[in-house]
């Protein structure tokens, strides 16, 4: 009999024999980093993204499960929130969906969330759907206003939003006073990176 | 150019709308001998879509319901100026539909063959021929390289205002009353029969009433209690400053949303997509302007230094399958012509002719038999673009 399709069971039951081949990760932008003056652009490659959808009809149960698991409330629309231990950053994505961002510690990031939440919520690994770019520095707003329709001067810590830049879907998260995390679909990551780099080059002598 | 008469009490035919409607009145008088006709225009002559478009004429249609009609229109264009003795500057310098992929080529080939089978003209060009004809297109650095084009040499442009004026002058001389600044406020319908209209200049009686009001179709027909398979959308059009001649004809960019020609005065006349939302504002917003210019720069990067001089917004009667309706209604004596989407200008002569035919004979013209109201109910849509009941995508 072939085994249950569920990935969690696959892992928990282990495997008897493994193939002789190895797969190596190769994200498109891996290792690219760059300074623009004092502004730093870094490709984040170790952070997992897991989506959690909230089951219809059990919103309240989910909310309390969530709070029990992570020591914080669900993020408000347009906002992000850290878990109490600050290991997880949750982004509000839609009325019934949030993203959990955390340091990846295994092959199955969805399991990390599943272990915390139990069977409440529908979970999908989104890590490979997105490229993640972290920007830090004082001139980010000046550069990003060339491509970002959001008002980044009024985008305080704890805000996040999905929008469109240069025809590309993107998610912005204010991570620190001088720092933003940006997500954009991984297949077009190269175009996204070029758009950001060009914005710096157009706005300063870097 | 034309008289400015007060409306009479009764006409054989009243036509509402002086765009296609003016053409209809002209052919009614000239071809069908019905001269006791009034054309009612809410604004000034040419204030509707006839005077707000990118002036392109072509008959490069795909579907059997459409192609013979548009080819009929093309032939009328070709004899138009001699017909009404007014120079509308019909300029058949060709229309080039660029394609960028094999599936697009296949679709254009199917279309080109439809055109040839219908007696129109079509040529499939490869990249080398296009390079000779249009050396200024982006071949080296294009995101979507040009693979070829469907060319209709007889396509081209016409001076749009002159079309209005020419038909008006012609109709006026045949006895048609052109009544400007006369808005229809209601229909006189008794026992399922339309006997006339109410207007801002008082009631006017008629044996038959034809409605041909483009983007205002839903509004006007609502006065007769009808709901239409139609939405009104804004389409922006653009013209650049005058430039020395630099384009050979009409060029359309298949991987973006951009079509362009150059007027006799030297302006680049161009356009793209609808703004995309229902609107009666007759003006659009900036994102569409940018989108159109992006398409323009992507395909012909020499136009970066040409300046956009004016833009305007027309009210498009976007139908549910992207094709028009020329048909009688369930109300006796009330006829409708609309749903031209943003292809109405090129149709002006045939639309007028077929409307005149319908008004005069109560039967559809043989090139316009598919343009029926009941085609949606029966599943006989004429959907050139294949996007379904989504008017803003046609």
């Amino acid at each position, binding site marked *: 009999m072939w085994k249950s399709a569920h990935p969690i069971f696959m892992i928990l039951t282990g495997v008897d024999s493994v193939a002789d081949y190895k797969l190596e990760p190769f994200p498109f932008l891996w290792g690219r980093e760059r300074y623009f003056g004092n502004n730093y652009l870094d490709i984040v490659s170790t952070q997992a993204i897991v989506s959690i959808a909230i089951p219809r009809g059990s919103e309240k149960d989910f909310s309390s499960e969530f709070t029990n698991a992570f020591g914080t409330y669900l993020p408000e629309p347009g906002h992000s929130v850290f878990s109490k231990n600050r290991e997880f950053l949750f982004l509000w994505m839609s009325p019934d969906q949030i993203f959990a961002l955390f340091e990846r510690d295994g092959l199955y990031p969805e399991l990390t969330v599943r272990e915390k939440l139990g069977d409440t919520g529908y979970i999908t690994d989104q890590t490979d759907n997105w490229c993640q770019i972290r920007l830090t520095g004082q001139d980010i707003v000046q550069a990003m206003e060339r491509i970002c329709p959001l008002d980044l001067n009024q985008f305080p810590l704890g805000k996040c939003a999905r929008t469109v830049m240069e025809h590309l879907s993107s998610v912005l998260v204010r991570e620190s006073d001088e720092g933003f995390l940006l997500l954009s679909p991984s297949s077009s990551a190269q175009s996204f990176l070029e758009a950001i780099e060009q914005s710096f080059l157009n706005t300063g002598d870097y | 150019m034309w008289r400015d008469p007060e409306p009479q009490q009764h006409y054989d035919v009243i036509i509402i709308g002086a765009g296609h409607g003016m053409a209809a009145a002209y052919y009614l008088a000239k071809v069908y001998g019905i001269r006791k006709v009034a054309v009612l225009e809410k604004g000034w002559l040419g204030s509707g879509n006839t005077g707000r478009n990118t002036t392109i004429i072509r008959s490069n249609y795909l579907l059997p319901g459409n192609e013979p009609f548009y080819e009929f229109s093309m032939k009328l264009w070709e004899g138009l100026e001699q017909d009404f003795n007014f120079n509308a500057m019909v300029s058949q310098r060709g229309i080039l539909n660029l394609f960028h992929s094999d599936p697009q080529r296949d679709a254009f080939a199917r279309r080109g063959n439809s055109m040839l089978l219908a007696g129109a003209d079509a040529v499939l060009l490869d990249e080398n021929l296009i390079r000779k004809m249009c050396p200024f297109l982006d071949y080296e650095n294009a995101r979507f390289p040009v693979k070829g084009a469907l060319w209709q040499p007889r396509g081209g442009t016409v001076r749009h205002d002159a079309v209005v004026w020419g038909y008006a002058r012609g109709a006026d001389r045949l006895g048609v009353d052109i009544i400007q600044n006369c808005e229809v406020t209601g229909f006189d319908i008794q026992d399922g029969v339309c006997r006339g209209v109410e207007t801002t200049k008082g009631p006017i009686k008629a044996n038959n009433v034809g409605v041909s009001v483009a983007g205002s179709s839903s509004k006007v027909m609502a006065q007769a209690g009808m709901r239409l398979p139609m939405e009104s959308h804004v389409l922006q059009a653009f013209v650049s400053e005058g430039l020395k001649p630099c384009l050979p004809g009409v060029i359309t960019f298949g991987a973006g949303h951009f079509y362009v020609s150059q007027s006799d005065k030297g302006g680049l006349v161009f356009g793209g997509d609808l703004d995309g939302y229902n609107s009666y*504002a007759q003006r659009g917003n900036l994102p569409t302007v940018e989108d159109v210019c992006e398409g323009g720069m992507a395909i012909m990067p020499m136009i970066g230094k040409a300046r956009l001089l004016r833009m305007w917004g027309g009210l498009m009667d976007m139908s549910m399958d992207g094709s028009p309706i020329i048909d009688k209604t369930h109300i006796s004596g009330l006829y409708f012509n609309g749903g031209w989407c943003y292809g109405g200008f090129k149709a002006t002569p045939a639309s007028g002719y077929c409307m005149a035919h319908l008004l005069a004979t109560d039967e559809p013209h043989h090139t316009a038999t598919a343009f029926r109201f009941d085609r949606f109910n029966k599943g006989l849509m004429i959907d050139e673009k294949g996007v379904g009941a989504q008017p803003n995508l046609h």
Partner: protein
Amino acid sequence: MIIDHPLLGPRDAAEFVYLGDASLIDRPDLNNPEAGKEFFEYLYLRDNPEGIHRELWYHEQGDRSWLVVTRNTLTHEILNVELARQVALAMGR
């Protein structure tokens, strides 16, 4: 244009995709004896007013909510914005 999203506040219309008349929520019941006629009218016949229009917009480059926007088609003034799901639920869907 700017659409004042009920959850997220004002956002550029460029983030949205337009569908059309909000009556598209009110999909007929297949089991109705007149279903054929109702589906035809539902899909093809639209109010197309010059003035107040309730219409569907999708926040595709945002939170993926479908919204019911009440907008004046003559002036483009937006009078009200609701989550379409709430509207649909209130209609008993």
